[in-house]
């Protein structure tokens, strides 16, 4: 006798397939997310470094940019004169931050001196700016060695060690200012 089983109407099978498909999608998505490389965690800055974007006051940010820009002009003057220009000569050139203009007082009223030339600073020049108002902007050192500018900061009205070399500055609590270039986020 032929017997045929007729299943009752229902959606169990379809439901099962839908649930299996959903599970497969969820599993593959979880796998994809898990395998995706996490962004590299940024290493914290060394203790003797300070970030120009996040670690400086408004006045310090302005001074730092001025000192970076001053490097090329100082190098050109040095080549023309055959010696390192004095802070007074740089002020006469209206070169910020050496120029004693009304903005200088608003940014700490730094007193600039030539802090070393020649062998002392590795064939370069160094200028020290002692702040009259460290709460606005700390004291600064600009060091030029022919390969660019190194700028150091200490939030105190303090003369830097002589000669202002890395080791001596770090030991005295000075921090080197660093900046990073970040291209447009939608490029």
């Amino acid at each position, binding site marked *: 006798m032929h017997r045929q089983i007729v299943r009752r109407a229902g959606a169990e099978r379809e439901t099962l397939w839908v649930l299996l498909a959903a599970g497969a999608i969820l599993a593959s998505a979880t796998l994809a997310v898990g395998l995706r490389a996490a962004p590299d965690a940024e290493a914290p800055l060394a203790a003797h470094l300070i970030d120009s974007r996040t670690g400086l006051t408004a006045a310090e940010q302005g001074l730092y940019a001025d000192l970076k*820009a001053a490097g090329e002009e100082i190098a050109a003057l040095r080549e023309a004169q055959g010696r390192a220009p004095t802070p007074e000569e740089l002020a006469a050139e209206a070169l910020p931050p050496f120029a004693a203009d009304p903005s200088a007082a608003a940014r700490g009223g730094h007193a600039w001196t030539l802090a070393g030339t020649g062998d002392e600073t590795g064939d370069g020049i160094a200028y020290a700016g002692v702040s009259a108002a460290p709460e606005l902007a700390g004291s600064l050192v600009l060091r030029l060695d022919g390969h660019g500018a190194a700028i150091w900061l200490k939030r105190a009205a303090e003369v830097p060690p002589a000669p202002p070399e890395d080791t001596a500055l770090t030991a005295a609590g000075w921090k080197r200012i660093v900046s990073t270039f970040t291209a*447009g986020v939608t490029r």
Partner: protein
Amino acid sequence: MSLFSNRRPNRRLILAGALAAAAMPVCAVAAPAGRRRFGVTLHPYYSYVANIVGDAAEVVPIIPAGFNPHAYEPRPEDIQRIGGLDAIVLNGIGHDDFAGRMIAASAKPSLPVVESNADVPLLPAAGMAARAAGKVVNPHSFLSITNSVLQVATIARELGRLDPANAATYAANARAYSRRLRQLRADALAKLATAGTASLRVATIHGAYDYLLREFGLEVSAVVEPAHGIEPSPAQLAETIATMRKLDVQVIFSELNFPSAYVETIRRETGIRLYAFSHISHGDYAADLFEREMARNLDTLVLAMAEAAP
């Protein structure tokens, strides 16, 4: 470190018509033999490059004058213009991000790019643009004398690498131009009889002026516009006015050529003095445009400081 970069093709779709047009042969008028053609995207960069190269090269704006770079969308004829360039000078930090897509779609996807801001100490974006823990930067580095000097030096150095025959000319021109820019700042400050107060509390309508204000030791207390060209909602406006009162803001800097009804509301409600800066993004491209507009901006800033002084 070389600042030239070859961009990865952007995945964002560009209009098929633009792609087709860009693929067509470039019909640009040939420059004199040996005379390079350098592209720029924004008005300040036209002024920088024009002053650096003088007559030794041609400066080609890839966006026609009259377009607002904040709302610019690439057009086929502009993409086509890129095919006739030897290099392009970019702001590169958010004000001309459209250029990457245009270069990728052009006949010269490997066009050398000069990153003008590579040596500029960048500031975090302000207002609503501020995110990613300071990784999104304020792209208005050109609204500053010092940062312009830094960019001019970078551009001259990199163009000199591309065009060694004229490298010395570019370097000399850049130095002369930088001295003129510094003199603008000195002349403006000479008009300020007394030292500007570092405690001047400033609000800006558009978060574009941080770099300029840093040169004077000033910090922005509040930014009014959520994003450039987007007016605040009534609730945001009320909150902004309350914030300004709380911070005892003395001066508001708005933007020329963008008159907004709500700015007058703020001024009326708070009684704070209002001054307008130029964004240097309007008018014809000209070698002296940056100097003219920045001289006006510096005069405006000095006037605001003088009038706010006790």
